[in-house]
C-alpha cells in the first residue's frame, strides 16, 4: 500500500491525535533523500546535496559528494573514514541544539554503532525524530538509545516481523567463545563473518569480557577497529591477517572477516576451519543453510520486533512512518493497534543479507 493511500485515522481508534495534523509534513521523501523544507537540509541523502545531516556512518546512510555534513561528535572519526579526510564535517555533542533556518536540530544516541544518532527536528512546537538505525540491546561500543518524545517518529523496520527476537547478547558471546574453544580443541580455525563496521567491534568488545586471547582480522575491519580504539572502546587485541608470517598456522585461531571474503582465495590460508556468521538473519535456519555456514550466531545491531514496538510506544508519537526492511507489515500491525502509521519508501538497506 502506498503511503498516500493509507487512511490517516483507522476507525477512529487512535489513542492520540496530532495537534499538527493540518500542517504540511516537516520531512518528505525527494529524489535526493529525506528533506526538511523549513530547515532546508537533507537527512542521510542518497545523492549529493548542499547540507546533509547524517545519522551514522554505514554506507547506505553516509554517502560522499555533499558540500557539508553535520553529525554526532562521537561518530566524527567514522564519518571521516567513510566520507574522506577532506569532507566538510561539523559535529554536535549528543543533546546539543543548533538552529538551522526555521528549525532546531539535535542528535541523540541510537545505540546502533559508535556515534550513531537519532535526529530530532523541532519546528514551531512540532517535533519529528528520524531514528536512522537503532537497537535497545546493550552494546559496550556505543551509547544506549535515548528515548526522544516526538509527534512523528520515522522508524526503521529491518527486522519488523514477530519472529525476530534477540537473546541476551552475553549468551550469544558465550556461544561464540564456546564455538571458538571447540574448534581450538581440534586444531581448527574459526572464521566468523560479520559486518566490518559495528558488528565486528561489538563482538571483539563482548569477547574481551570473557577472554584475552588475540583475534585475527581482515583488512576491511582493521582500520575501523583502530577508530574504535581511539574512541576508548575496550576490545580483544587484534592482528591483521595480512601481516602474519607467510605459512603461519591458523589452527585454533579466531578470524573476523566481512561476509564478502567467504569463498575467496583469501580463505585458503586458514587450512581446516569452520565458518560462522553473526547476523540477525541467522535467526531463521534456512538463511544459514542456504549460505552454507556451519554456525549462525543471532546478533544484530537493529531492534527486534518487541523493541520496535516498545520504542514506538516510548516516543509517544502520534504518527509513525516506517522505512527499510519489513516496513509494510510493521506499519500495518501498528495501524491495527490504533497507531497512525504508514510505510515510507527509501533506499536504506538496514542489515543486508550478505
Amino acid at each position, binding site marked *: 500500500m502506498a503511503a498516500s493511500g493509507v487512511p490517516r485515522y483507522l476507525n477512529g481508534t487512535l489513542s492520540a491525535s496530532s495537534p499538527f495534523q493540518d500542517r504540511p509534513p516537516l520531512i518528505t521523501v525527494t529524489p535526493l533523500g529525506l528533506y526538511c523544507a523549513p530547515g532546508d537540509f537533507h537527512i542521510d541523502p542518497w545523492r549529493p546535496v548542499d547540507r546533509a545531516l547524517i545519522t551514522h556512518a554505514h554506507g547506505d546512510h553516509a554517502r560522499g559528494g555533499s558540500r557539508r555534513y553535520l553529525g554526532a561528535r562521537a561518530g566524527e572519526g567514522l564519518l571521516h573514514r567513510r566520507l574522506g579526510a577532506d569532507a566538510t564535517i561539523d559535529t554536535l555533542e549528543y543533546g546539543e541544539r543548533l538552529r538551522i533556518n526555521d528549525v532546531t536540530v539535535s542528535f541523540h544516541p541510537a545505540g546502533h554503532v559508535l556515534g550513531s544518532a537519532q535526529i530530532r527536528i523541532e519546528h514551531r512546537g512540532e517535533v519529528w525524530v528520524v531514528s536512522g538505525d537503532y537497537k535497545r540491546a546493550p552494546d559496550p561500543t556505543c551509547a544506549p538509545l535515548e528515548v526522544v518524545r516526538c509527534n512523528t517518529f520515522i522508524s526503521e523496520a529491518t527486522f519488523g516481523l*514477530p519472529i525476530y527476537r534477540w537473546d541476551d547478547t552475553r549468551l550469544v558471546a558465550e556461544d561464540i567463545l564456546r564455538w571458538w574453544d571447540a574448534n581450538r580443541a581440534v586444531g581448527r580455525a574459526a572464521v566468523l563473518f560479520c559486518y566490518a563496521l559495528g558488528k565486528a567491534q561489538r563482538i571483539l568488545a563482548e569477547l574481551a569480557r570473557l577472554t584475552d586471547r588475540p583475534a585475527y582480522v581482515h583488512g576491511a575491519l582493521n582500520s575501523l577497529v583502530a577508530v574504535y580504539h581511539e574512541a576508548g572502546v575496550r576490545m580483544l587485541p587484534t592482528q591483521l591477517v595480512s601481516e602474519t608470517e607467510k605459512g603461519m598456522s591458523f589452527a585454533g585461531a579466531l578470524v573476523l572477516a566481512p561476509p564478502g571474503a567467504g569463498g575467496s582465495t583469501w580463505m585458503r590460508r586458514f587450512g581446516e576451519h569452520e565458518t560462522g556468521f553473526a547476523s540477525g538473519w541467522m535467526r531463521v535456519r534456512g538463511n544459514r543453510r542456504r549460505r552454507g555456514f556451519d554456525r549462525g550466531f543471532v546478533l544484530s545491531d537493529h531492534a527486534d520486533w518487541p523493541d520496535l514496538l516498545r520504542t514506538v510506544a516510548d516516543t509517544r508519537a502520534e504518527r509513525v512512518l516506517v522505512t527499510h526492511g519489513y516496513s509494510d*507489515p510493521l506499519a500495518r500491525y501498528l495501524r491495527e493497534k490504533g497507531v497512525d502509521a504508514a510505510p515510507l519508501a527509501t533506499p536504506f538497506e538496514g542489515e543486508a543479507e550478505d
Partner: protein
Amino acid sequence: MRRLADLYEALDQTTSTNAKVDALVRYFKEAPPEDAAWALYFLTGQKLKRLLTTKLLVGWTQELTGIPDWLFAEVYASVGDLAEVIALLLDGLERPARPEELPLSVWLEQRLLPLRDLDAAEQRERVVSWWKAMPRRELFLLNKMLTGELRVGVSATLVIRAVAQVAGLPPPGVAHRLMGTWTPSPGFFKQLVSPDVSDGDRSRPYPFYLASPLEQAPESLGKLEDWLVEWKWDGIRGQLIRRQGGVYLWSRGEELITERFPEITEAASALPEGTVLDGEVLAYEDGRPLPFARLQRRIGRQKLTPKVLAEAPAAFIAFDLLELGGKDVRELPLRERRAKLEALLKDRPRFPISPSVKAGAWEELARVRGEARERNVEGFMLKRLESAYLTGRKRGDWWKWKMDPFTVDAVLLYAHPGHGRRSSLYTDYTFAVWNGQELQPVTKAYSGLTDEEIARLDRWIRAHTREKYGPVRSVEPEQVFELHFEGIQASPRHKSGVALRFPRIARWRTDKKPQDADTLDSLKELLHAHR
C-alpha cells in the same frame, strides 16, 4: 528429547561428514535402546502418520501470540517452514526455569501417538501445555513430529555407518537388518546392534547393489575379459528369497510383491532352503522378454484372472546369488557367485539365467548393443568379475550402458504450474508434433531444464499466453524443444495414438523454428520399427 535436540543441533551445525558420523555414534552409544529406535526411525526418513492438522497448530499459535492471519502468512512466507515459524513465534512465551525432561520414547508412545484418538479440544489442551513448558529447540522438534515433517539432513549411508560403528559390525550387515518393515521398539534396536549374526527375520532382503550409468568410453574400463556383460532387462528389479519354508519376492522399492507373481512364487518353492537370488521380473514368453508395457498392464490389474496371467506370463531372470545354503555369499567375487548360480539353476528351466553376452572386443560389443531395441532390453550391464556384491550405488564395479535414447523435436503448446517449491512457476509442459497442417499434442515432459531456463521460459510463457484454462495456459506455438525418450508404444488412450516412455527435455532448440519440428508419421515409424 534433549538428547535428540543435541543430536539434531550437532548434525545441523556442520557440513563435515565425519563430524556427522561422530555425532550419530555419540548419540547411539548414549541413548537407551527404546529412544535410539525412535531416533533411527526418523533418521532413516520414516514419518509418523499425521497426528493432527496443521490448521489447528496455526490457530493455537495465533491464539497464544495474538498474531493476525495476514501477519502469520507474511512470516510463513519469509521462513518457509511451519514448525520453525511456530517455534520462533512462541519463543516470546514465559518458560519455566527448569523445563521437564522426558525420554523420546515416552514423548512418542505416551504423548504424541495417543493424540490421534483425541478430539480437537483435548489435543489443544495437551499441545499448548507442552509448548509452554519446552525450550525452543525441543519445541521445534516437537512441531516437526506433529506436522510429520521431521527429516534430518543425513543420508541413510551415514546413519548405517554410525550404527555399524557402535555395534562393531560391518555396515552391509546393519543395512541388511534395516531392510523391510520394522517397528521402533527397544527389541528391534537391540537386535540391530547385536553381534549375533544368526538373526533374522526370514523374509528380510539384502540391500540391492545398484549400477551407475556409464558416461565414459567403455574402453576406459580396461580389458573386456575382466567383465561380465549382460543385457539390461526392462522389467522390475527383484530379490527372490526362499527361506524356512517360505518364499518372498521383494521389489527394489522394498515392496513385497510375492502375491503379484504366483507363477514365480510357485516355481521358487522348489528351490533349496536358504537361497536368495537377485534378478529381474519380466513379462516373458517363448524364451524371450515381452515389452515392458505388457508387464505394466498386468501390474495395473486389481485381480489376477487366468486371462491376465496368460496375456503377460511373468518370469524371474536370475543374475546373481546372494545367499546359498543359508550362508551370505555377497563377499565372494562375482566369478564364483555366477558359477554357483549356474550350478544351482542348471536343471531348473523355470529360472532362466541372464545370459552372458560374448564379444571379442569393446568395439564389437558396441555394435551388438544396437540390437537392444529389437530384443526389448535397455542396453548392457557391465559387471567386474572380481567384484563383491556391494550395498547401494557404489561406482566402479557395476555399470549400466544404456542404448542411446530416441529423440524428437516438438513444439511447446501448453504450460502447467509446478508443485511445492516451484508452484509459482510454469514447469510442466505439453509438446506437439505436426500431423499434416496441425500440431498434435503427443507428450508431457517436466525435467531437464536448468532453474535459469525454467525461469526464462516461465517469463516467455506469461508474455505469450493465448488462453487460460484454469491453471493451464496455451501458448503461441513458437518454442521448439528436443525431447529424449526410451520407448514408444501404440496407445488408444492418447489422441495421437502413441505414448512415449520416460520423455524428458534434452535441449531448448532456440535455433529451430516450429516448422522444423518432427511429424507424427515419423514417430509412428519408430513404433513399427521396434516391436
